[in-house]
């Protein structure tokens, strides 16, 4: 997966903006209320490249609260549930896929 930092802003499906919280690095998602949430379910969803560009610009404007904002794909399930759109985002959202202790 190409680093999101190298991606041009062109989306092909529903997307969100994600970053890491500056103070502790926690994964956060840009919300529709111009804030951040640690829950993907709170993420603002964009469907066009222009919307994505605007949401990213808004996110980048908060340089104190967040670091490394980028656009990432999501899957929208029936009922509106938001799922990560690729493995990288699944790992960021759900955590490590490995056992930390020998098993």
């Amino acid at each position, binding site marked *: 997966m190409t680093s999101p930092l190298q991606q041009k802003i062109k989306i092909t499906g529903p997307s969100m903006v994600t970053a890491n919280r500056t103070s502790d*690095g926690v994964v956060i998602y840009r919300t529709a209320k111009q804030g951040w949430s640690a829950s993907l379910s709170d993420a603002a969803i964009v469907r066009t490249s222009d919307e994505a560009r605007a949401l990213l610009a808004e996110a980048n404007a908060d340089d104190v609260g967040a670091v490394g904002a980028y656009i990432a794909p999501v899957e929208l399930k029936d009922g509106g549930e938001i799922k990560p759109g690729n493995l990288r985002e699944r790992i960021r959202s759900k955590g490590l896929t490995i056992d930390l202790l020998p*098993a």
Partner: protein
Amino acid sequence: MYAYDELDRTLINERVSEFRDQVKRRLSGELTEDEFKMLRLQNGVYLQLHAYMFRVAIPYGTLSSKQLRRLAHVARRYDRGYGHFTTRQNIQFNWIKLSELPDALAELAEVGIHAMQTSGNNMRNVTSDQWAGVAPGEVEDPRIWSEILRQHTTLHPEFSFLPRKFKIAITASEHDRAAIKVHDIGLRLHKNADGETGFEVLVGGGLGRTPFIAKTIKPYVAGRDILSYVEAILRVYNQYGRRDNIYKARIKILVHELGIEKFAREVEEEWKQMGHGALTLDHSVVEEVRSRFSYPPYEKLPHMPDELKQAAHDPLFERWRKNSVAPHKVQGYSIVTLSLKPVGGPPGDATADQMDAVADLADRYSFGEIRVGHEQNLALPHVAKRDLPQLWKALDRIGLATPNVNLVTDIIACPGLDYCSLANARSIPIAQELTRRFANHDTAEMIGRLHINISGCINACGHHHVGHIGILGVEKNGEEFYQITIGGRADENAQMGALIGPAVPYAEVADVIEDIVEAYLALRDRPEELFVDTVKRLGVEPFKERVYATR
């Protein structure tokens, strides 16, 4: 152990104060991320998938028990109770909070540990043989020279903004455990015809996107001249190295594009112009550094103590001893490797409790000293043979007596997509599955020496090019695939592995590796023929046929 002087301590403490102020200004918004990024990288702080990652320097892989205990404390207090030892003999913490980093750094500074130049386009941690100073037949302790280079290059303004990162490794033994041929500069200590100690200097090695084996630029440079010669190389690199393209910025590209002869002429010219000035190392300077390394007060001990004879009746002990215990230069002592590759565990990880326990064992059995090897294992370098049975029992209790050193489950792996923002694919779960497949120690011993190296992207932190079997994670249409190479090696006969065919999906990697190993067992001409030697003798084809015939 090397004892830092007042200058070192002042430097480290000032650095902590400086970084504390920088973090404060970042958190208040006075510094933007663009302004802060280079500052944090110069202190070993990356931003990864889930959190900040903090890389702490362990110069030439040598730690005191006090330092290891402090690393355990940092893991427990500021992280999630574990750390990851890296292929540059460093340690990484994966969950550190930026707001707490200055406190963590301050606590590390109290025991002489820092994170300077563990990132950024500067001289990285100078690595060396993890058995330095204790290996039989060694020319001399290469850490003396590692330390001289460390002191000279730390915060050196001329080397703080190189075209790209720069890595040096030093060995002083015939068998290269420091992988010097895959470094920007590799230094091999040896004696010339007159019996004087100096260096063979190799340049332009490296892995990553464009792998190269280093070439010898000068067969012999006297010890007193090594600083000036290395600096001449760096000046040529600084002047001609490309800054316009990150993928072509390493010195290996410059050496390749100029050719080693022309590059050598440029270095020679620069070196001549420098003359025999301030960089020529006086004997007294070298001896001053040498004197700050302390060596244990070894006892006069028998080669084969009674304790060892009695323990030899225990087959489990004997299996571990034969696998993990190496000869020491002093009679009656051994070097003990502590495998950080338990079956099913993430390679190179150690819990805070394990670190504390190893520190205690080092105090009891190894004069308080621990080493970190680039293979992501630890070592106790000064263990009396009489103590081996007790040490083995203690290591077994804390899960660090897996008898798999240099065997198929002693896997080098980068953090991969579970942690790393650059990764394309996961490394650790591949390693974990392979350790389960080859968990039977009889099978692993029967297979013999076999190094599997795994990288989650082309940056090659897992050294996949030089694995006997190399596994490289790539991404295809959003799915994880893995390219497999065979025949690589990182020792004195270093070479890159050869690709065996198309990449295979995540779910098939372990099966493919099993196929390769089964092919080797069928093809080797005798049990002693190592995997790499069979590949060398027969080439890739028979392995390729075995893997792809049914796929």
